[in-house]
């Protein structure tokens, strides 16, 4: 127990001073290298506002589910059914807004999309809760329960729709899909500025809290640098999405619909898609849940040592129900985004998403042995996967080879992670 030297002053590296997560830095670095490489190979077509916009909206659905998968995997479970839960939620929502409710309320009724969304979320959460109950209370392994769910729920969706494609979805509902629902330049700047302020406030509030308890805080310059970095990144992202102009033909249609004529030379940027706002809200909420609530603390404690959690009074069975229910609700949220992006529901929506979602969480640093994982890591993992896929498509790699590369990257990423953990583990 002689460890009085642990707090002794020593020369600290830059990352230590900034208290940055070196693993996260490595991932961001890898991501940037990947983007630059694709940009060079495609003669600058990869890092255009247009492609970044598309990449962002393509990532949202998998990224939303990946945040829930972090909790599942941290708790030493797995969920193979997310793509199927997405499908059955999507089927429910499509049927409600296209077939069932319009007969009662009439097409275009403002309640259509609200009712559809609520019902979809309810279905997703209920299916997830059922899985969690089977895993937690009946002690059936999650692998088996959700493998069964993978087969069951997509086909339950098939029966709901008779296997038909249902659409077009309600126009208001389509706002959640991406290009059909963006904030426009002005409001994007407003949101961006607010987000930058919020990030800065969070950094400085954390510092004040630490100082109040007399704990060591970072040097002022380090705190200032982090604030600038965070605010800069947010504003740069907004600027990029604002720089992608809505195609002229589409603008003309919009003006026509309002009975006006488009002025000569008029242009307008897309700005932040609503779906991206949803992802950001999910990311913030899930991070707060993971770090600052009892529920999140118990998820990590249970993953670290299930017996210890149980003996400390954590109701691990109920916890299992809750994490799977949360996963199901997030699948339904992804279903809203995914189906409205396609403007209809087709029975194969979300096929193979379970693999993408698990891969995103794992590439993002979630350990299958449990107890370790971050929300932002999983989102970055989803972004890396999507960039890899669309980059290769842009370069003209044929799709079998794309899948081979993605598979190899997944295995390699986990191996690098293991080596990294062994190294840093040995040091402390």
């Amino acid at each position, binding site marked *: *127990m*002689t*460890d*009085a030297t*642990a*707090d002794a002053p020593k020369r600290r590296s830059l990352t230590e001073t900034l208290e940055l997560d070196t693993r996260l830095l490595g991932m961001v670095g890898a991501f940037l290298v990947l983007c630059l490489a694709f940009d060079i190979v495609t003669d600058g077509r990869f890092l255009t506002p247009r492609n970044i916009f598309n990449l962002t909206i393509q990532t949202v659905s998998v990224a939303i589910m990946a945040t829930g998968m972090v909790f599942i995997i941290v708790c030493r479970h797995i969920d193979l059914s997310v793509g199927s839960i997405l499908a059955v939620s999507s089927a429910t929502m499509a049927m409600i807004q296209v077939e069932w409710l319009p007969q009662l309320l009439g097409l275009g009724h403002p309640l259509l999309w609200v009712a559809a969304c609520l019902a979809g979320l309810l279905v997703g959460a209920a299916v997830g809760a059922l899985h969690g109950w089977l895993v937690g209370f009946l002690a059936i392994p999650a692998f088996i329960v959700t493998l069964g769910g993978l087969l069951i729920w997509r086909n339950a969706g098939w029966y709901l729709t008779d296997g038909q494609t249902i659409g077009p979805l309600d126009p208001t509902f389509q706002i959640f899909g991406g290009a059909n629902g963006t904030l426009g330049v002005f409001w994007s700047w407003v949101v961006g500025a607010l987000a930058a302020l919020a990030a800065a406030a969070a950094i400085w509030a954390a510092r004040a*809290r*630490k100082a*109040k*308890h*007399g*704990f060591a805080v970072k040097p002022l310059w380090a705190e200032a640098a982090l604030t600038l970095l965070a605010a800069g990144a947010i504003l740069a992202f907004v600027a990029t999405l604002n720089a992608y102009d809505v195609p002229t033909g589409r603008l003309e249609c919009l003006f026509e619909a309002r009975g006006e004529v488009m002025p000569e030379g008029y242009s307008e940027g897309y700005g932040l898609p609503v779906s991206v706002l949803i992802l950001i809200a999910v990311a913030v909420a899930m991070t*707060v849940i993971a*770090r*600052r*609530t*009892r529920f*999140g*603390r*118990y998820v*990590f*404690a*249970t*993953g*670290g*040592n299930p*017996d*210890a*959690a*149980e*003996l*400390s*009074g*954590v*109701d691990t069975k109920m916890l299992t129900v809750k994490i799977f229910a949360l996963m199901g609700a997030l699948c339904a949220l992804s279903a809203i985004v995914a189906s409205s992006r396609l403007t209809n529901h087709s029975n194969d929506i979300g096929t193979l998403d379970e693999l993408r979602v698990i891969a995103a969480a794992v590439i993002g640093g979630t350990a299958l042995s449990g*107890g*370790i994982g971050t929300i932002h890591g999983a989102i970055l993992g989803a972004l890396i996967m999507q960039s890899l896929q669309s980059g290769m498509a842009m370069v003209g790699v044929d799709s079998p080879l794309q899948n081979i590369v993605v598979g190899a990257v997944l295995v390699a990423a986990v191996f690098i992670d293991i080596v990294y953990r062994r190294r840093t*583990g040995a040091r*402390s």
Partner: protein
Amino acid sequence: MTPLVEMRDISIAFGGVKAVDHVSVDLHAGEVVGLLGHNGAGKSTLIKCLSGAYRADSGSILIEGKEVQIENPRDARAHNIETIYQTLALADNLDAASNLFLGRELTTPLGFVDDDRMEAETRRIMARLNPNFAKFKEPVKALSGGQRQSVAIARAVYFNARILIMDEPTAALGPQETKMVAELIQELKRQGLGIFLISHDIHDVMALCDRVSVMKNGRLVGTERVADVTDDEILAMIILGKNPERA
């Protein structure tokens, strides 16, 4: 005087193995009762019925003369029973403060987990229990066996237990730390706690305990006042299952 805890006629079997076989023990406030016996005698299993980790197949538990149902660890905590498990039961991936408050986190007025306050409290209690302890930020995986033990002890002591169960609390400790735990036990005893102490060190037990209960093969051999018996008589109880002869 009614005992603080009475465990009456407790039995529990795993498959065919009668791990605890009709055992009765009791504990008064301000008293330390030692549980002795070979490896596999059933000591840990017996006290796990009190801490809520297991449910006894038969028998009853009384606290201050009132029969209680302890079905899970939460029930035990509700009766102010705290346990230091032989296996320590820490979440390796969390830091000392998160482990100390696991299941009873301090929260902000808005209901969020208050990590800073928990760390401050952890520093305070550690300064008392183990002044050398400094690894507050690391996950407890990175701690030595003794450091982990002090986290487990701090967790049991922090929440004002009335009944404390210590299953081999000094197994991983060096001589100096063992002495610290002995002093802690005496201080807690003065404060009026009742303590069940499981240990394989007869000298420790004889020095700290008021009474000892000896188990062998799941059965209770007997309970004796420490003042009335010699070390050798206790050894005979443990090894031969033989009660001391009275003149």
